C-alpha cells in the first residue's frame, strides 16, 4: 500500500474514533460506508475491519465508564449471552449473503440510525435533568434479551455496534437510566464484535494492512475524545452525523440500484 493510502486510513480512523467516542455511537455506521464507498473495499472486508475498529472504540472508552461505575456490568453480561450468540450466527450467515444484499441491508440500517439519532439530538438540546444512576429496578428481561439477540445479529452482519437497537430498549422497556444504558451498551459491544470478528478473521476478511492504520487512528481519536468529551456540545456533532449518515444511505441505495457492489 502507498503511504498516502496509509495516511488516509489513519485519518478516517481518527475522525471515526473522535465522533464515536463523543456521541456514544460505535462508529461502524460511519466507517463501513466510508471504506466501502470511498476506499473501494468489498462489503465483507469493510464489515471485517469495522468490527475490529468497533472493538477498539469499545475497549478504550468502556474502561473509563466501568471505572466511573456508570456501567451495569451484571446487566451487560446477562445481555451479552444474547448479543454474542446473535453475532456468531450472523457472522456465519454473512459469508453466504452476496455483497449487494449486504449493502442494501446496510443502507436500510443507516436510514434507521439517522432517524434514531434525530431523537437523540432533540433530547441533547435540553439540559440533561439529573437522573439517578443507581437504585433502578430492571424490568422486561425477555424483551431485552430479544433486542440483544437482534443487535448482535446486526453487529455480526453489518460490522456495527448495535447501540441504536439496544439503548432505546434498555432505557424505555427495561427502565435503565439513559447514561447507564449507553455505557452498558458500549461495554457489551467489545465482546459482541470480538465474537463475529473471530469468524471474519478465520475467513481472511480482516486485512491487517487496512485495519492497522484504521485501528491506530480509532484508538488515538477515541482516547482524545474521552478527554475533551465534557467540553463539547454533542448536539452539533449529532446534527453533522445525521447529515452524513443520511448522505451515505442515499449513496448506497443509489449504488445498489445502479448495479454497484458486485
Amino acid at each position, binding site marked *: 500500500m502507498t503511504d498516502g493510502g496509509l495516511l488516509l486510513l489513519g485519518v478516517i480512523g481518527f475522525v471515526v474514533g473522535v465522533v464515536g467516542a463523543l456521541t456514544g455511537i460505535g462508529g461502524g455506521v460511519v466507517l463501513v460506508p466510508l471504506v466501502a464507498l470511498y476506499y473501494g473495499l468489498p462489503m465483507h472486508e469493510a464489515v471485517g475491519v469495522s468490527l475490529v475498529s468497533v472493538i477498539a472504540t469499545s475497549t478504550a472508552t468502556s474502561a473509563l465508564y*466501568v*471505572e466511573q461505575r456508570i456501567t451495569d456490568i*451484571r446487566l451487560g*453480561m446477562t445481555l451479552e449471552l444474547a448479543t454474542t450468540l446473535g453475532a456468531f450466527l450472523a*457472522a456465519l450467515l454473512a459469508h453466504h449473503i452476496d455483497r449487494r444484499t449486504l449493502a442494501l441491508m446496510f443502507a436500510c440500517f443507516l436510514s434507521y440510525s439517522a432517524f434514531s439519532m434525530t431523537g437523540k439530538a432533540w433530547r441533547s438540546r435540553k439540559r440533561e435533568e439529573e437522573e439517578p444512576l443507581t437504585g433502578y429496578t430492571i424490568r422486561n428481561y425477555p424483551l431485552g434479551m430479544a433486542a440483544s439477540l437482534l443487535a448482535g445479529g446486526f453487529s455480526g452482519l453489518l460490522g456495527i455496534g448495535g447501540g441504536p437497537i439496544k439503548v432505546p430498549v434498555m432505557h424505555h422497556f427495561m427502565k435503565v437510566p439513559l447514561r447507564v444504558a449507553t455505557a452498558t451498551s458500549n461495554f457489551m459491544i467489545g465482546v459482541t464484535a*470480538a465474537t463475529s470478528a473471530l*469468524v471474519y*478473521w478465520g475467513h481472511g476478511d480482516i486485512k*491487517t494492512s487496512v485495519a492497522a492504520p484504521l485501528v491506530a487512528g480509532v484508538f*488515538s481519536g477515541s482516547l482524545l475524545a474521552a478527554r475533551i468529551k465534557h467540553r463539547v456540545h454533542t448536539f452539533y456533532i449529532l446534527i453533522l452525523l445525521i447529515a452524513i449518515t443520511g448522505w451515505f444511505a442515499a449513496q448506497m441505495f443509489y449504488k445498489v440500484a445502479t448495479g454497484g457492489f458486485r
Partner: protein
Amino acid sequence: MNRESAATDQALALTLKIGAYSSFVSILAGMIFGFILPFGNKIIEIGFLILLATPGLRIVVAGIQFLREQEFKYVAISAGVLAVIVTAYVLGIRA
C-alpha cells in the same frame, strides 16, 4: 452496591485498559518499525490478537471476580458468554 462489586469494576477497567493500550502500542510500533524491520507485520498481528482477545479476557476476569464474591448466577453467565466466544473462535479458524 457493596464494596466487593467496586473491586470487580476496578479489575475489569484495568483489564480493558491494559488490553487497549498494549494492542494500540504494538499496532503502532509494528507500523513504524515495519519500514525498517522484517518482522513489523508480526508485531501488528500480535496487536490484533491482543485486541481480539481482550473482550474474552474481560469475561474470564469477571467470572473469577464473581466466583470470589460467590455470585454463582453471574459465574454461570460468564461461563456461557465465554463458551459462545470459544465456539466462534474454534469454528472461525476452521471455516
